[in-house]
């Protein structure tokens, strides 16, 4: 124990030293005037052009600036983030590929019937709130990822309250969830590539991830839905991303929930750990 006391004392001294060495230049003004006096010029350009009906050559027809930046002005960043999320889920699934889909050895019954009936009623409400947040992503704060995280509470609660056996036999087994996730990702890719396909059939130049019409191309997604601004392609992106996030969270829960007996089958045949 004495070795750890010396180690802890050295670490606490170095923490205090590091915080002091960072805080002194901050107090002397290294970060500029704090809080900043005005937003930066690039933010002024984004805020000015995101819903400006007088200058429709670079607008995005969505009055929410954050959704417009994430899916239109900086759409390629979001493309790579979606790829990272997808590979993380696939890597976690690949460690368990022998036992996915097998019947679990434990027989669960879930919780009592009062809890089950009331959960069944409230799950509908949670799903409605989640999908409303997804579909309003271009008008109010919300969007694909936020609404997907809210709607994923449904599947997590369902695995705990009804038993895991019930979920495996229902229509939300891991195969169907994987199909939903792959379809949603294909939907995102299609929404990005449709302008290029349009270029093959007509004679205009279009760009990948294009949302509204620009000065040199006439292709544009529709910009109102009923009487509210629709972000063009932003609405489609939010819908597909919401579906992808719901299925990704449910898959992650299913992987962690396997019983120990069944999970030890994946390391059979390896005596040492590396």
């Amino acid at each position: 124990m004495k070795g750890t006391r010396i180690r802890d004392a050295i670490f606490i001294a170095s923490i205090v030293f590091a915080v002091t060495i960072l805080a002194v230049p901050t107090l002397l003004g290294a970060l500029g005037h704090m809080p900043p006096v005005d937003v930066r010029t690039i933010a002024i350009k984004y805020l000015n052009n995101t819903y400006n009906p007088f200058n429709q050559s670079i607008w995005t027809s969505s009055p929410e600036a954050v959704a417009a930046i994430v899916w239109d002005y900086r759409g390629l960043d979001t493309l790579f983030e979606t790829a990272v999320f997808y590979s993380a889920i696939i890597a976690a699934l690949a460690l368990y590929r022998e036992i996915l889909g097998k019947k679990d050895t434990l027989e669960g019954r879930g919780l009592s019937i009062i809890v089950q009936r009331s959960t069944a009623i409230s799950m509908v409400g949670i799903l409605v709130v989640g999908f409303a947040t997804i579909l309003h992503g271009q008008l109010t704060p919300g969007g694909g990822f936020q609404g997907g995280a809210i709607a994923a509470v449904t599947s997590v609660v369902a695995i705990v309250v009804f038993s895991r056996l019930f979920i495996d036999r229902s229509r939300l087994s891991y195969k169907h969830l994987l199909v939903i996730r792959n379809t949603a990702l294909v939907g995102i890719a299609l929404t990005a590539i449709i302008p290029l396909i349009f270029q093959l059939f007509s004679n205009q130049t279009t760009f990948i991830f294009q949302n509204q019409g620009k000065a040199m191309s006439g292709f544009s997604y529709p910009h109102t839905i009923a009487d509210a601004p629709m972000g063009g392609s932003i609405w489609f992106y939010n819908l597909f991303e919401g579906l992808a996030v719901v299925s990704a969270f449910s898959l992650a829960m299913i992987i962690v929930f396997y019983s120990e007996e069944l999970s030890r089958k994946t390391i059979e045949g390896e005596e040492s750990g590396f």
Partner: protein
Amino acid sequence: MLELADLVFVMLGISALLSIPATILAIISRDLLRAVIFSALQSTMYTLMFFLLMAPDIVLVYVAVSIGFMSLLIILLIKKVGRYERY
């Protein structure tokens, strides 16, 4: 005389100062279940900070992910690997 701007900044300072003991207790405690609960408390303080900084998109993501999903995942992990740290 206190105006509205002063109150907002004072709330920011209080919620940031309240998150320091939560973090320190989360890292020092040897019972891992308590560490997860303190980490959820620190996430609540951060959510209040994000709301006062006028970032409603981040509040929605952060509540669902950090207080809900990550705490649940780590509690399941603790159930499988063991609850107490050695030292």
